[in-house]
């Protein structure tokens, strides 16, 4: 039997503590959301669904939820084809400038989001897009694009472009051969990219803080404002629902990515 060294034990203990630190805050929300207490008490005195009722019966929260879902859906519908087209072009073209364009498409990940938010606010103020649905959607399309591009480019790496050549030599035009040959093979990374864009739009807060208003405020903006004022357990209920939704989506995305082809 091998003796376990003290360094090894320390490694296990530290890692376990770090993992608890990572997981505990995520797990703590659900019990709070089912608590009957008006203020935060732990452990919860008794079980209740009042905070969920509060959420579903509040018109302001419901309107914000509709805005969030609408924006996230429209974001996916617009960002996915744009991102796929761009990723396809970047991977297939030999033009030098494509490298620069590739980097440009990743800019939303590089520029600190607070700067993006303030900049968009100034530009939107000039063209009258502040507090509008199109303005909100457009900003989220921009923020979601890198995820689609990265995901599809990763998918394109295992795709053999010669197959498309074959299809075209057999008389298909470029567009048809893309839809008939290429797309089915990179489908899972396209779907995954779309799901990441959806989650990114659902979670986006900082840009929304600056450019949304009136009836077009997403859930995150209302949550942020509520959190600044008072810790209302309704937010725990919303948080639990949001977390559950995004886990389901991530599971769907990773299940798709693992499937070959």
């Amino acid at each position, binding site marked *: 039997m091998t003796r376990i060294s003290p360094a090894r034990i320390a490694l296990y203990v530290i890692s376990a503590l770090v*993992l608890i630190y990572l997981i505990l805050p995520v797990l703590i*929300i659900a019990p709070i959301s089912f608590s009957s207490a008006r203020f935060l008490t732990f452990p919860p005195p008794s079980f209740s669904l009042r905070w969920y009722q509060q959420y579903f019966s509040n018109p302001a929260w419901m309107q914000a939820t509709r805005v969030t879902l609408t924006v996230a859906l429209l974001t996916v519908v617009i960002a996915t084809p744009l991102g796929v087209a*761009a990723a396809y072009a970047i991977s297939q073209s030999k033009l030098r*400038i494509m490298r620069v364009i590739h980097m*440009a498409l990743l800019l939303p990940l590089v520029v600190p989001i*607070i700067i993006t938010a303030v900049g968009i*606010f100034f530009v939107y103020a000039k063209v009258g897009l502040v507090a509008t649905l199109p303005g909100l959607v457009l900003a989220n399309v921009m923020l979601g694009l890198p995820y689609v591009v990265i995901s599809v480019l990763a998918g394109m790496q295992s795709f053999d472009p010669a197959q498309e050549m074959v299809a075209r030599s057999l008389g298909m035009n470029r567009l048809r051969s893309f839809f008939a040959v290429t797309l089915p093979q990179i489908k899972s990374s396209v779907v995954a990219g779309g799901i990441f864009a959806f989650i990114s739009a659902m979670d986006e807060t900082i840009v929304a803080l600056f450019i949304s208003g009136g009836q077009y405020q997403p859930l995150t903006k209302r949550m*942020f404002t509520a959190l600044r004022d008072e*810790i209302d357990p309704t937010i725990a209920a919303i948080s639990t629902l949001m977390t559950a939704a995004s886990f389901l989506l991530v599971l769907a995305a990773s299940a798709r990515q693992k499937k070959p082809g």
Partner: protein
Amino acid sequence: MLALVSPALLVILALIVLPVGWLAWQSIYHDGFTLENYRRVFTEDIYWRSFALTFEISLAVTLIALLLGYPVAYLANALPKGWSILILALVVLPFWTSVLVRAYAWLALLQRTGVINQLLRYLELISEPLALVHNTFGTVVATVHILLPFMVLPLYATMQKIPGDLMQAGASLGASPSLTFCRVFLPLSLPGVLAGCTMVFVLCLGFYITPELLGGGRTVMVSMLVSRNVELYNQFGAASAVAVVLLLGVLLIFFAVSRFISLERVLGQK
């Protein structure tokens, strides 16, 4: 091919390049060219303090994330496949919960009537609740929590590529495990350390939600300076100058790091 990228490129140009260019212009132009905004940013105390604080917090967060993340990545790399998948899943799990949700969770855990204070009082370890949140401490705890996956993932990816034979070779030549680790494994994992630290540091420099909600108004990071100048004081020129300085700092870091490792490697983990 250019026709295929142009729609996406147009969106990026209209919503990143144009707005940032606008900010830069606004920071130097107000009824004529002026460097007044930059003079203020570099001389006035409140700006200096905020930049210094942001730098300190980012540095502290990066170091803590490295100290916490390295053992986890090391263990995930050393254990058999099933265990390492479990560890990585636990690391990525909080990644996919909203930053707002996690801010709420930390408020619930750390506030005066929060879980930790109640627990400590129940155990009679303290008589007065500790001030764990609405200060720099709370900001750092929550920020490390959010950024830790950005440290662990590149570390793990790099460690995975270190051939196990090298460690065995070290051992067969008579080196102790700790010596092999220090002389062989640690240096080979440095690209991962650099990628992780860059990502965590840069993201932390621009952090907004967490310090705003957990800092209690006292921990004014640069991002809050930008938003306050816009929302409260209508100081667009000053806000723009602060934003430009922050952006230049971030780009400079990326540029410096890109000389050692590829940027795709740094950004790929996000």
